[in-house]
């Protein structure tokens, strides 16, 4: 029995590790694909090569991000079966078709048009190439739609019948299953998060180059675009998050109790605990700083509304409070910091110091990777918050695992950790190196030719580029 528990814990760690790593890439590539489509669209509309330069600059980064997303994603599509075979058998009739639709309507679309998007500009012409870029961007959004439908169904399962063999069988309406109660909120909140994450990466890179040379027109453009996104999308995201929270309160109350740190019920107005240390053993939050009745105000829109606490939930149905409590605060904290940057940029724009405010540039640079932290923290909040269930209230995580021995899972977990840190660490380093180059006029595309399609010959590490100055072209044919 003890062995079995160990294998289960290892399988959970492995899933958490591989999906957290994987999630980093799509949360960037979803936003970046759309950003590339916007840049190429602006180039076609205005004819300004500035946009083409920016398109090519980010396309190189997109190519690496996408490759890492693909290979870490294939792992996910098999891990349901390798490590969670009981779950796969029981939920396959419902979740399998949704994932099959993801492959058919998203993965093929992305992969089919990616080659043309990366290498095909000169072969197919501008318009067809733009179509390919749009298809890739659309594919990333379709993929998010289906996989979040799958996840949402596990959180708020509806529209099924129980089969005699223990399987969850689809009921008469697939629309009920796809558009399950938490899906619209989760989809909007997650895709918005991907856009915001990308905006802060782009803004951070722009800020870095502005700090080195505030006259760089390319850096100015990307910084400005990113700050518009921050100013507009961050507040939307906070509202969307609030609505998602209300939806969670309705369908998964114990998750919200853990997020809020409400061990006790509050019959006349629950406080909003800003900070504190959840003490699950004693069932209280130590050293807490709280605003009286504010939680009831936010969640029920009434200062004195009664709020149930974890004391109303049997112990074996409670999620781990500490993790959920903290990850939720990290996510929300970053969200408000993003809003702060957005507002600061509006003020700087109004004061005409958007491109000269070193303080803003430094802050934007520091916030560059913050979206990834927020996305992972948000994911941990929702996934740990629904424990101990894998299909909410119907199937426990402990019932879902494959009949594997602990050493087998331990070995694979170790292999994943070593390989992922090595391979994706190197990839991130390559991305950072590309980002370290200043964007400039005559930006090389993902070059193709006899000596390699994916080489940025001629602009590999060299002295800082002088923006506005046309780079000498490399000896091989240039696809400007």
């Amino acid at each position, binding site marked *: 029995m003890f062995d079995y528990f160990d294998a289960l814990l290892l399988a959970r760690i492995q899933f958490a590790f591989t999906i957290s790593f994987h999630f980093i890439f799509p949360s960037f590539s979803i936003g970046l694909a759309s950003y590339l489509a916007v840049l190429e669209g602006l180039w076609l509309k205005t004819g300004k090569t500035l946009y083409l330069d920016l398109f090519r600059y980010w396309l190189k980064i997109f*190519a*690496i991000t996408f*490759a*890492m997303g*693909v*290979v870490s994603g*294939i792992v996910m*599509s*098999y891990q349901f*079966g*390798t490590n969670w*075979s*009981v779950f*796969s*058998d029981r939920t*396959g009739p419902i*979740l*399998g*078709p949704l*994932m*099959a*639709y*993801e*492959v*058919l*309507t998203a*993965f*093929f679309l992305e*992969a*089919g048009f990616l*080659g*043309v998007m990366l290498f*095909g500009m*000169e*072969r*197919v012409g501008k318009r067809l190439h733009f179509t390919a870029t749009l298809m890739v961007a659309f594919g990333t959004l379709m993929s998010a739609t289906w996989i979040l439908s799958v996840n949402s169904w596990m959180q708020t399962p509806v529209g099924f019948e129980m089969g005699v063999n223990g*399987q969850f069988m*689809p*009921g008469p309406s*697939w629309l009920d299953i796809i558009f399950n109660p938490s899906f619209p909120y989760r989809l909007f909140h997650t895709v918005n998060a991907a856009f915001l994450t990308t905006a802060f990466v782009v803004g951070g890179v722009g800020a870095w180059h502005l700090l080195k040379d505030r006259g760089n027109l390319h850096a100015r453009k990307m910084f400005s675009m990113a700050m518009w996104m921050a100013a507009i999308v961050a507040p939307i995201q906070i509202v969307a998050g609030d609505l998602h929270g209300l939806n969670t309160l309705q369908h998964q109350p114990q998750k919200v109790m853990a997020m809020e740190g409400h061990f006790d019920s509050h019959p006349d107005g629950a406080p909003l605990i800003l900070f504190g240390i959840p003490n699950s053993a004693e069932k209280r939050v130590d050293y807490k700083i709280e605003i009286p009745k504010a939680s009831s105000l936010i969640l029920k829109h009434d200062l004195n509304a009664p709020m149930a606490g974890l004391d109303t939930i049997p112990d074996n149905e409670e999620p781990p409070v500490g993790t959920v409590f903290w990850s939720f605060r990290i996510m929300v904290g970053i969200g408000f910091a993003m809003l702060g940057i957005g507002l600061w940029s509006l003020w700087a724009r109004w004061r005409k110091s958007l491109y000269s405010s070193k303080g803003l540039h430094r802050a934007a640079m520091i916030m560059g990777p913050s979206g990834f932290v927020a996305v992972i923290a948000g994911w941990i909040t929702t996934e740990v918050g629904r424990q101990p269930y894998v299909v909410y209230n119907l199937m426990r995580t402990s019932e879902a695992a*494959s*009949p*594997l021995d602990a050493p*087998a899972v331990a*070995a*694979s977990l170790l292999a*994943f950790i070593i*390989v992922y840190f090595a*391979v994706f660490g190197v*990839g991130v380093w*390559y991305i950072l190196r590309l980002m370290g180059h200043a964007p400039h006029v005559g930006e090389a595309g993902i070059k*193709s*030719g*006899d*000596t*390699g*399609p*994916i*080489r940025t010959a001629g602009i*590999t590490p060299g002295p800082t580029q002088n923006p506005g100055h046309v780079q000498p072209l490399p000896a091989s044919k240039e696809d400007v």
Partner: protein
Amino acid sequence: MDLTVIWAFIIAFSVFAYVVMDGFDLGIGILFPTLAAGPERDRAMNSIAPVWDGNETWLVLGGGGLFAAFPLAYAVILPATYPLIIAMLLGLVFRGVAFEYRWRDPRHQRFWDFAFTGGSFVAAMAQGMTLGALLQGIEVTGRAYSGSWFDWFTPYTLLTGLGTVAGYALLGATWLVWKLDGPSQHHARILAKRAAWATFILMGSVSLYNLLLNAEYAERWLTAPEIFFAAPVPILTGITAIALLRALAVDRHSKPFWLSLALFLFGMAGLGITMWPYVVPPGLTIWDAAAPERSQIFMLIGVVITMPLIIGYTAWAYWVFRGKVGDEGYH
């Protein structure tokens, strides 16, 4: 017609599409060390760079489709071959990123070339051994795998693994014959001949071994009336093999690739005859493992609508990058 049978054919088609499409780009990975460093390797890589990602998507469809259409089979096969699947996934990680990384970091290009080859070899070997593990039979109790976690490791699965490596190398070499020219094409033709012989020998050995493996398999192939359905497969395979060797002997460009592809098609047909109607021999038939009818219908609608589109734009993507790599590059 029975929906379950239709789904068995759809999954088989996905697996076949995966095997031949990712087969040739995995094959190029396997052959990479035998290609000359420099332009020859670069061109070989370029010939697959725009399409490998699409090719690999068929693997996701194969896995995802199995999960959707035969969830019980998915839930049994993957734990039974756990170390193989993990090895395959990690191999695919290495070779997938090598496509990008080797151009990003010229100083470590040798390392990423090695990762490309190692990853391709491990993935091909693991896939072949998984097929072998399936054919030799998987122990099932109730609705779960009940063997130990090294049951998949036998001389037979080693043979099927090596056969797959050789077959992929053949697909890769004949693809290069098609896409390269000059001395590189000549080199690819030599590699293709060697890979062809290795494939014939290993494919033949696996086929004969199958007859010893399981009395039911032997009955399929050796007794009337089944033999009348089964016999054309080895005969056509033999004819194709001879045609392939002849095409490689003369100055043909695309023909060897198409003949290798036909060889895999007959291999697949043989596999179907051997396994039918089991999805997990010796116990689970496709009907035992099938998803309920509502799942099958819902997905079938998706397949009917999207599959022609997928095949259409995939073909278009190949068409965009047609021609010899060395002639014009991708400009």
